[in-house]
């Protein structure tokens, strides 16, 4: 599907599988600790879907439309375990947003996300301090290992 994640190696999960969202197994994967996430995307559909997906795993999730709003939120003291940032944001683009967030000392896991995977964009994001870069859609296969890792290595 063109999903490119640089750092994540799905860890062996004792309690279930990456397909833990299969309701017929009776259990949806859920994090045990309080985890927080921020979605930064100028598209309403993507914002809504990514937010719903993260929340379904028990992650308290907020969403903003612009890089500037994300930077302001963090400047005001908000912290997030995970920040997902769209590449092509107007004004402050994805990598620049990531750069400014890192410059404020945020230790969050930052994931760049895009509609069309592009190596240049990947390099830009990683150089700006992002931990990974993937192509939409944000899927359980990608996000469950990330949440699991955050949950178990807090």
């Amino acid at each position, binding site marked *: 599907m063109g999903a490119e994640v640089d750092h994540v190696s799905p860890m062996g999960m004792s309690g279930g599988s990456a397909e833990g969202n299969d309701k017929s197994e009776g259990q949806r994967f859920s994090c045990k600790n309080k985890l927080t996430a921020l979605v930064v995307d100028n598209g309403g559909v993507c914002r809504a879907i990514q937010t719903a997906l993260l929340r379904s795993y028990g992650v308290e999730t907020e969403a903003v439309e612009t890089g500037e709003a994300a930077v302001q939120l963090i400047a005001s003291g908000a912290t997030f375990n995970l920040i997902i940032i769209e590449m092509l944001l107007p004004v402050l683009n994805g990598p620049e947003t990531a750069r400014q967030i890192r410059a404020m000392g945020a230790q969050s896991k930052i994931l760049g996300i895009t509609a*069309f995977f592009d190596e240049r964009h990947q390099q830009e994001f990683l150089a700006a301090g992002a931990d990974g870069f993937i192509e939409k859609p944000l899927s359980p296969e990608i996000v469950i290992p990330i949440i699991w890792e955050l949950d178990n290595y807090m």
Partner: protein
Amino acid sequence: MDRNHLKRQVDFMKRSFLDQGYLDEQFIQLEELQDDDNPNFVEEIVTLFFNDSARLLQNIEQALVSGPIDFPSLDNYMHQFKGSSSSIGAKRVKNECTRFKEYCTAGNAEGCLRTFVQVKQEHAILKTKLETYFQLAKQAGPSGTSGGQIR
């Protein structure tokens, strides 16, 4: 003709959309997110998608017909359109977006115009199919589109 029969029809319709490539696994993921707290999540998201995408398609259309083509703008609109299309599992629409992007990147106006016709067509077809699907699902009653049952 009971509710179970309608539910089976709904499931059958969804399976055919998947088999024919109109939708992909991502749509199933959206249905997994539907629950008692969010009983109409998928329909709401899909409605939002068709509202948003109508605007984006109009922007693309404008950019294609007015004067010398601004390829970076086209690229931007298509980026957002493809992002949301892939996020709802609109597989055929997404594939046409990818074709469009190739022409756009190459600065090929003719190719963009041609492919855009396909993009609009697939978009319109999917809209009709999903409208029918949700209508049928409503008739089937609450959780007519039960997530996770079609694999």
